[in-house]
């Protein structure tokens, strides 16, 4: 039993560590949210909270139910794969109540260059222009119809079409 006496301080140290661990575990049981880990490494209840947020995007199918003309134009043009709300922004409110919420028209001077301004980081085969040289400040939609932008397509504005396809 001399060992126990002479190693007494080590047992005290071990006790201190045990107490510390217990203390942290106690705090932990208060701090960790109840639903944590229910489905994964996050708070389970967060799913319901996030789901309760009002939707901001309506999705292109919704837009197309009312704007059939635009949908047709777009489907035939080069922007067929570009979502309505990628250009018009989140419009769920407008889709719910079109008469009182007016989405307005996007400003093409900001919008089109976001995707088409020439940049070395873009894939080479993606259509790109140097907007300043290309349009000389004239709004893009003077020559390109946003929903079917290729020049010479059926719906291109008369100012740029200059002939048939």
């Amino acid at each position, binding site marked *: 039993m*001399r060992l126990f*006496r*002479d190693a007494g*301080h080590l047992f*005290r140290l071990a006790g201190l560590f045990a107490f510390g661990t217990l203390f942290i575990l106690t705090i932990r049981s208060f701090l960790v949210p109840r639903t944590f880990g229910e489905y994964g490494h996050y708070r389970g209840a967060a799913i319901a909270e996030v789901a309760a947020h009002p939707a901001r995007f309506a999705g292109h199918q919704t837009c197309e139910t009312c704007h059939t003309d635009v949908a047709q134009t777009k489907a035939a043009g080069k922007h067929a794969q570009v979502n309505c709300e990628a250009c018009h922004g989140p419009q769920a409110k407008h889709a719910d109540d079109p008469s009182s919420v007016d989405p307005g028209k996007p400003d093409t001077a900001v919008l089109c260059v*976001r995707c088409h*301004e020439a*940049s070395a980081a*873009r894939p080479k085969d993606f259509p790109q222009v140097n907007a300043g040289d290309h349009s000389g400040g004239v709004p893009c939609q003077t020559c390109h119809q946003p929903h079917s932008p290729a020049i010479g397509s059926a719906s291109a504005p008369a100012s740029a079409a200059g002939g048939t396809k």
Partner: protein
Amino acid sequence: MPGVEGFMYPNEVSLYWSVLIVLYPFITGLVAGAFILASLERVFRVEAVKPTYRLALLTALAFLIVAPLPLQLHLGHPERSYEMYMTPHRTSAMAMFGFVYLWYLMAVLVVEIWLDFRADIVALSQSTTGWKHWMYWAMTLGSANVSERALAIDERVGWVVTLIGIPSAFLLHGYVGFIFGSIKANPWWSSPLMPVVFIFSAMVSGIAAVMLLYMALMRLRKQPIDMRCVDTVASYLFYIFIVDFSLEMLDLIHRIYEADESFRSLDFMVHTRLYFSQIVLQILLGTLAPILLLFVAQVTKLSEPTRKKIYAVSGSLALVGILAMRWNVVIGGQLFSKSFLGYTTYKMALATREGLLVAIGLTLLPLLILAVLMKVLPPWPEKKHASIPEAVAAH
């Protein structure tokens, strides 16, 4: 990211890991290096470096306390960082690092220091009065048993703790290297050699720091420098430096020979933006120069004052070199685009939360903490003789 849309890689806009993240591996490296130096003495019973043993332990503790601060200052929500411990994320290297840190601090360093200083603490708790008495008494955990047998047990347990401590120190710093080396999206970092290079550079910086501190403190205390000790420490520094340098060159040669798709871009970077910090500071001044100086000190018979000067210069250069290496890893790895089509610049801020002033403060803070630690737990043997029973002095 305000104002950023479209095809962009994040670091094409700004550099996210600032100078504080440079400091962080530098500081943890000093911890691991100082501890490994102390362990050499303990495990292999190298008598010559004994005078630096306790200093190395306290240095490791002082720097370890500061190590998480640069990270905290970098975080957007530092007050949430404790959650890392509350909800451990087993697949995240960064999250697990919190546990490596805690293990190293509590299970290794604190225990080893406590065991080693216990006899002094007991003596101090008896010789002091007032609040100091209570402070030391609390540190004894209420046990004043410094009998020969108790101290022999401490010695044995301390040896085991050191033995566990060495892999822990490797783990601590290997982990820092791992965090960089495992980022497969970044060719500058992604290399399995990274943890190994980090460990050896950590040993270089830690040994250099303890050597410099020892010489500086002896000078401050107007006491003779134990040249046998400093010579041995310097020879360790020399050998480990050579291993470190070979590893770094191995990494470099491997990259040059492999010359994968990132090579041209990285090569350009090393010749332009990183030229000064990589070629000049890290390799020429920070590695080759000190190795050469230490080599000269090893093979020739120089006078004591000259050796001291050589050690002081090569130790300082080594620290500069290792700091530059951390800079080149952390900042260098963010300077190029993942598309390999362009480069960013890093402009260090001055007086912001992650600026230069904070970085300088964080470098000095460990020295301040070390000064306090040395006041509380004097590491010098002279004091030991004055206040400690014979049993300890015999050890």
